């Protein structure tokens, strides 16, 4: 009977592990550039529009050059590939796009399509719609589509006016009070809007600006139309002409001035959509001008200053070559990338680009995830064959490798951001996973009971699953600029790190305790009291370790608050969350001293403690303002409650078993 139970349990656990491992492997595969497999066989679709637009797949070299193009976004300089990746994730919920032609586009290839082959990009199934009700709400037919499906811009286009009207109406409702449908409509409208801005971002590079007026034409050697880069190159002459014309008494000057303004308006009209994309580094030092240029701000700056840097002209010429199609797109990328890289280098803003490219190219997180998956498999087999030393060694080596990859990922992130390891919620997940796995490995080295190594595998697998899930839900760059109050590396390094180690130890203790309770409830290893004693000892040790860090971290937080705001404690939700962890762990240790908790009781308390940490770590963030994307919070809310309920159910079941065993023992006496 028991054997059957155990087999069933292990089968379940193994299936779960396989699923997570497969997910991790998929992540790793997705994270690597798919450019090698890209669009080589894509059939050329015919362009119906008259605008000259290229229509062919991007060469690997072009993707490489475009991917490492520096761009200033969200307050920092990052490679275009990072920008493309998170933009695609936001619109489609994935980092790659399964195109209609059957090939998979990586994010950079997709973004280049949007920029330079917009007609083609419009037909790709891009926009993730969670529930087709949102499509019906904007008056479109959902025939032939699944309830949760991806829609192309071309498919949505007839419904866009209604979409915008509805989104406008729903946007007035406070995000917390919106229904799921209303939120989806708002999100879809935002995404369509974002796509349409990107689609027009290189309109300027395809445009021919009309030149009228004798003296204006003379600047361009008599040409009737010029490219944007050409207008930029002549900006100093145009500025001089403008001064001359405005101060001239000649009646013909009025017409020339009007022609000059017309040129300016035309340039403005074509470059307006590029407002958000700052990919042109200023030619001056960062201390003189921090904000990078868009093509339009570059032109108006050159016009105002009466000077232009030849590298800027070269960059724009390069993009025009790409945009206008023909065979020399690649040469265009080379020119544009070289000019931008040179400018960024002169400002010292390209130092971290190579690191960031390497971070996403080699995807240490994806590798770590996959390795934790394999380690989990080994650990599951180890549960079936507890005496196999080969399996034990395999599990240990895999966990160690996975942890090393994760630590490397965290170290790379620190180097890229110039920050201590934890400054965002996403980074807490990585750090908790790494710390928990390291502590578990240390435990395994100390007692070689084959328990801690399995716990490390579970923790690593689940931790990275949560990290990936969070990233997918949040859809924001995971290396953002920090708000003013967090701009202090000293407190981030001390308070935040200590608290996060406290989280990690508490979660590991909860996991080990849950293993203990699960084994008790399922009556596994009933005749092995040493197993239980060792497990409970580990729970106690890890809890003490965690309590020290939680206390120190909380007090350091108080000191930070006192230094900065003149009060040690303010009963703020996040402060209270940290206090709850401290209180729970300290109460556990005192209850053990008082003799109220022994092996079993301590494990029930530690397993419950996991939910206290989860509340403090995630729960308080969902209480109030700050994080208010509906899909985001509802996704996390559901995961959080599943964890609460699972832990509580386990505690209750274990409590019931304990109570029954005591009652039986009393009756026997």
């Amino acid at each position, binding site marked *: 009977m028991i054997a059957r139970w155990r087999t069933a349990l292990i089968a379940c656990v193994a299936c779960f592990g396989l699923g997570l491992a497969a997910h991790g492997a998929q992540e790793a595969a997705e994270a690597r550039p798919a450019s090698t497999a890209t669009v080589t066989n894509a059939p050329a679709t015919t362009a119906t529009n008259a605008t000259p637009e290229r229509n062919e797949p991007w060469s690997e070299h072009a993707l490489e050059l475009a991917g490492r193009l520096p761009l*200033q*976004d*969200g*307050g*920092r300089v990052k490679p275009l590939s990072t920008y493309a990746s998170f933009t695609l994730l936001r619109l489609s919920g994935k980092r790659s796009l399964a195109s209609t032609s059957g090939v998979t586009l990586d994010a950079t290839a997709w973004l280049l399509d949007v920029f330079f082959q917009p007609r083609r990009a419009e037909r790709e199934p891009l926009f993730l719609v969670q529930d087709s009700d949102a499509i019906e709400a904007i008056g479109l037919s959902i025939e032939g589509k699944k309830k949760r499906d991806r829609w192309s811009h071309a498919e949505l286009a007839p419904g866009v006016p209604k979409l915008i009207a509805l989104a406008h109406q729903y946007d007035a409702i406070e995000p917390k009070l919106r229904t799921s449908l209303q939120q989806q409509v708002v999100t879809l409208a935002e995404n369509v809007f974002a796509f349409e801005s990107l689609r027009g971002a290189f309109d300027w590079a395809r445009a021919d600006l009309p030149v009228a007026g004798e003296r204006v034409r003379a600047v361009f050697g008599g040409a009737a139309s010029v490219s944007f880069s050409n207008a930029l190159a002549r900006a100093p002459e145009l500025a001089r002409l403008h001064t001359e014309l405005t101060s001239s008494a000649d009646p013909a000057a009025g017409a020339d001035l009007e022609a000059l303004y017309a040129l300016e308006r035309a340039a403005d009209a074509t470059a307006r959509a590029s407002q958000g994309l*700052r990919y042109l580094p200023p030619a001056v030092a960062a201390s003189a001008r*921090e*904000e*990078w240029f868009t093509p339009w701000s570059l032109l108006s700056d050159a016009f105002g200053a009466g000077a232009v840097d030849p590298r800027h002209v070269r960059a724009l010429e390069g993009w025009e070559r790409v945009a206008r199609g023909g065979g020399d797109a690649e040469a265009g990328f080379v020119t544009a990338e070289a000019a931008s890289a040179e400018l960024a280098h002169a400002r010292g803003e390209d130092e971290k680009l190579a690191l960031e490219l390497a971070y996403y190219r080699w995807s240490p997180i994806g590798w770590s995830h996959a390795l934790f998956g394999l380690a989990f498999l080994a650990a599951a087999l180890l549960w079936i064959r507890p005496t196999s030393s080969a399996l034990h060694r395999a599990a240990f080596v895999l966990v160690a490798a996975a942890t090393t990859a994760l630590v490397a990922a965290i170290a790379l992130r620190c180097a890229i951001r110039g920050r201590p390891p934890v400054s965002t919620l996403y980074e807490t997940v990585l750090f908790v996973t790494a710390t928990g796995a390291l502590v578990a490995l240390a435990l395994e080295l100390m007692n070689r009971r084959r328990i801690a190594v399995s716990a490390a595998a579970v923790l690593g697998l689940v931790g990275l699953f949560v990290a990936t899930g969070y990233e997918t839900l949040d859809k924001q760059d995971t290396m953002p*600029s920090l*708000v*003013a*109050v967090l*701009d*202090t590396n000293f*407190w981030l390094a001390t308070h935040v790190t200590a608290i996060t180690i406290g989280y990690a130890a508490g979660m590991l203790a909860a996991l080990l305790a849950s293993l203990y309770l699960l084994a008790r409830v399922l009556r596994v290893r009933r005749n092995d009291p040493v197993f239980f004693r060792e497990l409970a000892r580990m729970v106690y040790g890890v809890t003490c370790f965690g309590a020290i860090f939680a*206390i120190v971290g909380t*007090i350091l937080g*108080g000191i930070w608050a*006192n*230094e*900065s*705001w*003149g*009060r*040690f*404690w*303010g*009963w*703020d*939700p996040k402060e*209270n*969350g940290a*206090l*709850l962890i401290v*209180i*729970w762990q*300290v*109460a556990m240790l*005192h*209850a053990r*001293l*008082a003799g*109220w908790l022994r092996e079993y009781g301590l494990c029930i308390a530690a397993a419950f403690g996991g939910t206290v940490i989860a*509340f403090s770590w995630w729960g*308080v963030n969902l*209480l*109030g303002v700050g994080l208010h994307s509906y899909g985001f919070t509802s996704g996390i809310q559901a995961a959080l409650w599943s964890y609460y309920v699972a832990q509580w159910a386990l505690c209750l079941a274990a409590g019931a078993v304990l109570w029954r065993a005591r009652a039986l023992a009393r009756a026997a006496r």
Partner: protein
Amino acid sequence: MKRARRGVAPTSSSAEASARVDRMDEHVEASAGAASSAPSTRQNPVRAACGAFLTIASSTGTSCVLLLLLGLLTWLGTLAQVELGLYEAQKRYFESFALVERVGPVPIPLPGGALVMGLLAVNLVVGGLARLRRGWATAGVLVAHSGILLLLASGFVKTWWAEDGHVTLFEGQSAAHFESWQRWEIAITAPQSDGSVRELVVPEEQFRFATGDAPARLASPELPFQVEVGHVLANAEPAPAGTAPGTPAVDGVVLRALPRETTAERNLAGAHVALIDPSSGARHAGLLWAAEREPLRVEFAGRTWSIALRHERYPLPFTLRLEDFRKEDHPGTAMPRSFESDVTIVEAGASRPLTISMNQPLRSGGLVVYQASWGPSNARPDSKLFSTFAVVRNPSDA
């Protein structure tokens, strides 16, 4: 302007508060004293009782129960902030001695945070310090327990004796006082015969609970009249007479009660006042409202008196002038990277310039002045900005 900070008439609530403080101090001392006298014989019932008390007061079981209660209060107090806001939740759960929590229709009495933390301090002193075996093995525990005790003590001092508030200044403005975020006071300005002005201040405790049926009467030898305060509303707005039944109208206007704001500092209190001539009994009625620009002016005994309801003010030991406020964003975003205020401190005739920024507050004269907020949020590049500094006088952080 001469200024006197004093209550106009004594009331019971502040006296009660200090009595509570005294009693709690005695409690701590008594138990600490008991700890030093070793319990031994069982014949003496007093000694036996002391011994029993000591056993309970010092046990780890007691710590455990108290910690769990504090944990429960912390959890409830955190969740309650969604509905009540920080200020109210803090008063209800953490600064109280007892409260009643409703779980659905069932009322559950709970000890308040102040009581639990007080008892925890006793438990710490008796069990965690006095009765703990001393040696290298317990050194860490002793240090940790002393640290927690210090935290509880400083928290206690902060809660009862700290003043906190803010100064909000436009560029070029200066101030010599700061005002509370939440607490109110009524200020009565009395013109003196020598031409100077004297300000009498009535703290919130003396009128907070005054209603139409039970108004608060304020009197002072310096005033030729009594002030009757009634219909005090925590958050109110003026409205035409007749729109709020039960509240008296003055010149066709009444104050209508509004629900309390979750952010307590957004509340705008209001009250109905009447100046009463003690000899004739004649009344002169008026309305006080916190958002009123001008104080209520009343002619009495040939002089003009002004009365205002405003946030409680505390003097600064220096004059603070805002020279320039700067907000810097991360490049190309609307995400703030830093806030900085250049200020001048004028103290005892000497002035010194300095910069207050996020994580870099000014500490001077027992005060901490830090960058808290700024505005207006829709300011144009050339318009004047204001900067809000939060000010805390915390005796436990001297």
